[in-house]
């Protein structure tokens, strides 16, 4: 069994748990209690489904990428089109789930962290929709790199706070959001954007994102009358990937690959540590200081990873590999040119892996790749490389 994690205290095997200041235990317990109550509540489920369908645009298509399939001359390639979600990425699935929960808990002040700005934009969007105050913490360096997303968040009515501590990127934005929550533990809801952090976040974010894998499973079966042979998704914090992978974990013949950015590969190159409330693989110095990372894609530029991925790595259920900036640019280019789909640089890492995997497979086999977001946000960045 791989899908029966975490335990009641949020442990995925030896990973996960809660490594946070005592002040946060009460709000985390309150959140966990509310989540466990509402996740099986018929009204909550139907409202979640309603907004996913009518607002976020679900189900997203599972698209057979014929040109790409022909190019690699191996397995059939299917793209799970999360890029077609409202706001342009899978992040909105989780935001809708968490904000519906916040409303039921009577929390009106929402705080969120963002790296590239995709989760920040999704959070700002959801807060506009549900009439909630929204404060987004973003590293000063990312504010500079992602000016367009900062502007989008402001248009949506969110307040963006530029974080000047530490390396001024995503990890510091998360630190600062946790610090805000410590100062405001009773009236504030922390809408966390990835499957990271203290319990219950990794479990809750995974559950909200599992709509990706559940839909893909049914859609693939419609086409192929069988399970896929391989799943591929990019892994930063790991929310789109765990969302795709989770419903397939018990389908033993399905091979699963997570693709990390080579400059931020916590699973491939890191060691076990504690970051942002969970025990997990982290990139750290010999003496235990958290390292800063580099990736062309801001969404993968993170020193840690969700604890469930650490568990799945050690359990041997998911294999994690790396793609570097150049690989990502290749993925970006072929999908744009051959399928007319401009992918996010994050998702481009997963696309790039097809070159390795697809040609080795037979034509009666199939691959599902999570196209977690669209690439409009990255066009400016790409201009510096081509």
């Amino acid at each position, binding site marked *: 069994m791989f899908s029966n994690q975490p335990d009641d205290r949020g442990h995925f095997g030896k990973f996960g748990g809660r490594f946070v*200041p005592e002040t946060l235990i009460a709000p985390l317990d309150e959140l966990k209690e509310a989540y466990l109550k509402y996740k099986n509540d018929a009204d909550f489920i139907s409202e979640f489904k309603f907004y996913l369908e009518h607002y976020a645009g679900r189900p997203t298509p599972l698209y057979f990428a014929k040109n790409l399939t022909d190019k690699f001359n191996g397995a059939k390639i299917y793209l799970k089109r999360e890029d077609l979600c409202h706001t342009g990425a899978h992040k909105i699935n989780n935001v809708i789930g968490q904000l519906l929960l916040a409303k039921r808990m009577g929390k009106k002040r929402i705080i969120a962290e963002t790296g590239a700005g995709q989760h920040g934009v999704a959070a700002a969007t959801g807060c506009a929709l549900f009439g909630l105050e929204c404060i987004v913490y973003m590293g000063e360096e990312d504010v500079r790199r992602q000016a367009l997303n900062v502007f989008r968040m402001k248009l949506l009515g969110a307040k963006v706070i530029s974080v000047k501590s530490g390396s001024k990127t995503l990890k510091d934005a998360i630190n600062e959001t946790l610090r805000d929550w410590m100062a405001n533990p009773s009236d504030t809801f922390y809408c966390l954007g990835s499957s990271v952090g203290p319990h219950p976040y990794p479990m809750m974010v995974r559950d909200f994102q599992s709509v990706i894998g559940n839909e893909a499973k049914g859609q693939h079966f419609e086409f192929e009358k069988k399970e896929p042979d391989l799943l591929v998704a990019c892994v930063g914090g790991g929310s789109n990937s765990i969302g795709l992978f989770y419903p397939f974990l018990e389908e033993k013949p399905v091979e699963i690959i997570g693709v990390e950015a080579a400059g931020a590969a916590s699973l491939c190159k890191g060691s076990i*540590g*504690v970051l942002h409330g969970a025990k997990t693989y982290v990139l750290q110095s010999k003496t235990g200081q*958290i390292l800063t990372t580099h990736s062309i894609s801001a969404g993968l530029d993170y020193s840690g990873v969700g604890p469930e991925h650490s568990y799945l790595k050690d359990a041997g259920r998911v294999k994690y590999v790396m793609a570097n900036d150049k690989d990502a640019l290749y993925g970006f280019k072929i999908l744009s040119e051959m399928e007319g789909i401009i992918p996010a640089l994050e998702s481009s890492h997963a696309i790039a892996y097809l070159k390795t995997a697809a040609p080795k497979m037979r034509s009666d086999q199939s691959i599902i790749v999570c196209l977690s977001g669209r690439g409009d946000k990255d066009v400016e960045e790409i201009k510096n490389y081509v």
Partner: protein
Amino acid sequence: MSRISEVFGKRKALIPFITVGDPSISQTEKLVYDLEKAGADIIELGVPFSDPIADGPVIQAAHNRALKNNVSLQDAFLLANKVSRKIKIPLVFMLSQNLIENYGSSKFFSDCAKYGVGGVIIPDSIPDEMEEKNDSIDRILLVSPTTNEERIKMIAQKSSGFIYLISSAGITGKRSKISADVSKMAAAIKKYTNKPIAVGFGISNPAQAKEAAKHADGVIVGSALVEIIAKKQFKKAADFIKSLRRAIDAG
């Protein structure tokens, strides 16, 4: 009774916090001696970490200054080994969980014993995640204003050395007012234990120290002291601790 808990039997304890290696290891060493002379009963040594989530800007900056000197946990042990032989008061480490994970938990606690560190405060860990203690090192646990009665009871049982009472929710840093609930919270803890209680988070002047000492067995001062050290006013840092000592004793 550990060496740390014994301290509280003599007088209201004054517990200053400084960061190891801010601005240098040799200056930290001098500060430890000066703080003892100024009236400290226990010294909390913060081990620098890149991502201290429970700390406000003042202590984050101190960590960054120390990290610029590449100060590590190993260096902190070397310093503890040196100073613990020369002072009469106990030393406590305050550090993030990742540093312990990285060092190796069992080696960490055996090195504490070896190098004269009597207790450990881990602000980003909770007793629920801690392994059973089978050594002489005190695990000083925190109680926050958000902690419910059930947890207060559990923490009161599991904490050793003393109980660290956080005066208000939030991160470390000076506060203009210390929460009026401190006496209530201390009373809630006393229901379950006779272990000493020290109040911290926000204490920044003699009047606040005096007030906090009325409700507890000890007072912890961090950011206000670190702010003086940041300006390299080391004599003023010792004088500040003297002024807190006088205020507490007069109370």
